[in-house]
């Protein structure tokens, strides 16, 4: 944990410097008749962020913050596995949206989570994995008139058929 604290502070300091540099694309000073330039607000906020990372580093040296005193591992075996399986699962879900539509991706993700990670029965898995996308479809497309991504062209006939039900 102690090492992660200082590495994170370093990354955040670099990020603050990047934000300061990026803010200078617009004027960061006071423009007569216009007030502070468009870059002033984010520039000075990023400067404060940089100063804060300095204090975080100082607290790390003085061992005053809880993470700087901790000898625990930042991410142990369980944490890494969880991040890979759960975090990876959500990433896969989002990646699938543009291919098999929001509703299709939802169906696949629910089967993955409920059956593989949750070890629920097939009956329960399939009931939830089917009911959720169907109810979302009617809530968003029919009631709220908000269209969610429909995926690639090959799914067009499916959604055309569904649209005839709701319109």
């Amino acid at each position, binding site marked *: *944990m102690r090492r992660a*604290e200082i590495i*994170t502070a370093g990354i*955040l300091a670099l990020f603050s410097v990047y*934000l300061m540099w*990026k*803010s200078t*694309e*617009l004027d960061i000073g*006071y423009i007569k008749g*216009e*007030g*502070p330039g*468009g*870059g002033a*607000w*984010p520039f000075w*906020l*990023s400067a*404060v*962020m940089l100063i*804060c*990372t300095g*204090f*975080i580093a100082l*607290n790390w040296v003085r061992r005053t*913050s*809880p*993470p700087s005193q901790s000898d625990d591992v*930042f*991410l142990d075996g*369980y*944490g890494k596995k*969880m*991040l890979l399986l*759960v*975090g990876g*699962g*959500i*990433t896969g*879900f*989002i990646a699938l*949206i543009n291919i098999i539509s*929001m509703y299709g991706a*939802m169906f696949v*993700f*629910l089967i993955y*989570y*409920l059956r593989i*990670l*949750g070890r*629920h029965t097939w009956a*329960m898995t399939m009931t*939830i994995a089917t009911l*959720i996308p169907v109810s*979302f479809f009617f809530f*968003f497309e029919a009631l*709220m008139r*908000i269209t*969610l991504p429909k995926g690639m062209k090959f799914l067009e006939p499916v959604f055309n058929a569904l649209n005839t039900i709701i319109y």
Partner: protein
Amino acid sequence: MMEILGHLGDGLWLSVQPVNLMLIVIGVTLGLFIGAMPGLGSVNGVAILLPITFLVPPASAIIFLAAIYYGAMYGGAISSITLGIPGASTAVATTFDGRPLALKGRASLALVTAAIASFIGGTVSNILFTAFAPPLATVALSFGPPEIFALMLMAFATFVGLGGDDIPKTIFSICLGLVFAAVGYDEISGAPRLVFFEITGFLHGVNFLVLAIGVYGIGEMLWTIDSTRGKITSTDAKMSLKSIISDSKEGMRRGWKGTAIGSFLGFFVGILPAAGATPGSLMSYGVAKMFARNPKEYGQGHPGGVAAPEAANNSASTGAMLPMLTLGIPGSPTTAILLGGMVIWGLTPGPRLFTDQSEFVWGLIGSFYVSNFFALVINIAFIPLFIWMLRMPFTVLAPLIFVLSVVGGYAATQDMHDVWLMLGFGFAAFFLRKLDYPVAPAVLAIVLGPIAEPTLRQSLLFSSGDPSIFFNRPIAGPITIIAIILIFLPLLKMIWTKIKPSKAETPV
């Protein structure tokens, strides 16, 4: 006074007419579910259902839309408490204490407290609205950019001074939220700003819901699974009529102060043009924490932390109607749509509305009281359903929360770029949370940033760059000074604790 009561009586009578009463019940129920759905808020509900109202007379139409608005204010709390994802921006602050209460198995206490606080907030604001509508609107209008910026500064200061978290990390979190709020087109010059790696998705800015859902829906869930080693099976939440009564008593005993603060502060912030229910609820949370006997309990699951923002968002939603009706200035995005509806119905909002369209105005005011009552009843009736959701095995609840987060992240702006951004925020929040970085201030800052920056720049433009404008105005001055004291409060506390033991050691 008698004249006002007479008008109110007529308004109440109009709102309990069968058609209007039915519209109120449907509107409140629809609003409750729209508000509970992450990514959708009262603004979506009112905007989508506005065309339906052309089928009924204007008074019934506005009663229906106001009922949706009310229902959504109640509904926002439901997903904040049960799922840990704010249903709407107005319920962001409800997550801070509502979620910890649900995790402790006290979801029913949080839900009942939220419902009762919302009812009280709504009732107080209705009374204030009825009694003081026109003079209050004039006071609110005297708030210029320096006063509004001072209020924003105070909202941030309460987090720094009373957060109890690591100070540099809290300030970092606030500044990060404010920088994210600055992404997109600069409102004053119109130039693109902070468009990272020239990705065009950043041109429309970073929506606060994308950050809020990323932090609470994904980051918080990953952190919960990691910190509990995945051994959370379900929340021990039980519900019976007896428990509703005992939870109501406990919620009010521990949350009365928060309810009172939220009811009055929320109403006043709601009146301010361009403020509305979201800043109202966040500020009420901060102030309730400031006046709490033990501020450290806030954030750990204190009913006061649920009562304050919930009373405030309901109170502010009525407050926001005030400048809309009396001056024709909307106080929130939802009232802006309502204003648009009124113009389409052939009504002219402004001071003459109260005299020219007396029946319409008082019918609306009467419907506030009726909607508020029905929202409480319908909300409490649905609590067992929300509690049942919590009793689901965690391996069922977690994927549902992830699905809701992804859909909510998309529905907010309908752009896949924002869904990826939300995932990025979720992972970042998970890592930062492990290192004790408070994430709530960043969410607060991204919500208030679009108000804070323009008001600061306009103030400095008025004063030709002289910052003393925040100190020498009668309203802005005291607020700014209190905010600065709050920011330095941790430092003063540190000095005090260093002096105190040395005093104790001194022999008398």
